[in-house]
């Protein structure tokens, strides 16, 4: 598998989220994703970008185009926020420390092919999702 292209987009403000969604849409369309798959990965990106701002205090989204047996799109959301003390709990539907529905992290996981989250309390959080065509 090789990485064809990488770009990093700031995720600090609400307009950044809108721009990030648009880029994910464009790139997943270029990769030939079906409309449903495009919608799933854009929606997952929207949830994670919002988390990056609300819980992480802002960060970045790295967008990678993957070329292998199948084409894919890998998105990495990274922040230097307070981190997640209990990832299992954070992934559970309905759990939130904010004012949302608690569907963001677990919901995003269901919408993609691969999902990983690493977090260190006091240092930040990194969420990586991959959607294969």
């Amino acid at each position: 598998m090789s990485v064809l292209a990488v770009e990093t987009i700031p995720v600090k403000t609400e307009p950044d989220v809108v721009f990030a969604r648009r880029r994910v849409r464009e790139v997943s369309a270029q990769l030939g994703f079906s409309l449903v798959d495009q919608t799933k990965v854009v929606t997952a990106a929207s949830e994670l970008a919002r988390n990056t701002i609300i819980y992480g205090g802002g960060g970045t989204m790295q967008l990678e185009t993957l070329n292998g047996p199948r084409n894919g799109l890998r998105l990495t959301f990274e922040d230097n926020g307070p981190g997640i003390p209990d990832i299992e709990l954070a992934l559970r539907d309905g759990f939130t420390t904010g004012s949302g529905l608690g569907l963001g992290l677990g919901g995003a996981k269901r919408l993609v092919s691969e999902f990983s989250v690493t977090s260190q309390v006091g240092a930040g959080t990194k969420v990586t999702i991959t959607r294969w065509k």
Partner: protein
Amino acid sequence: MEKIPILKMGQFLLVTIQVDMHDRLAMALQDDLTRMISDTEAHGVLIDISSLEIVDSFIGRMLANIAAMSRVLDAQTVVVGMQPAVAITLVELGLSLPGVRTALNVDAGMELLRSSNGFRG
């Protein structure tokens, strides 16, 4: 700041969301709509989301909130025109929009509002 226009047609309010909404715009719509329902004594709200390419948990929550608030203000809300890909994604995300009435298109939505308001003449 940009705004989503709300049109009044008879006893109903019509909203067509045509922009890629950021969260603050969604919150503003919620506030504007509740104020308009109260000011105009509208009995129904029709929200056309056929241009929306995604509905994430935030927008889903906004739609559910609008439906709940308008119900308390004696108005029905119908969300129309959801794209099939959006519907599939929304359910997989874990949102089924409880309490939100939906219709396939504007015509069907207007019919639903009219029939549920029929007794008012």
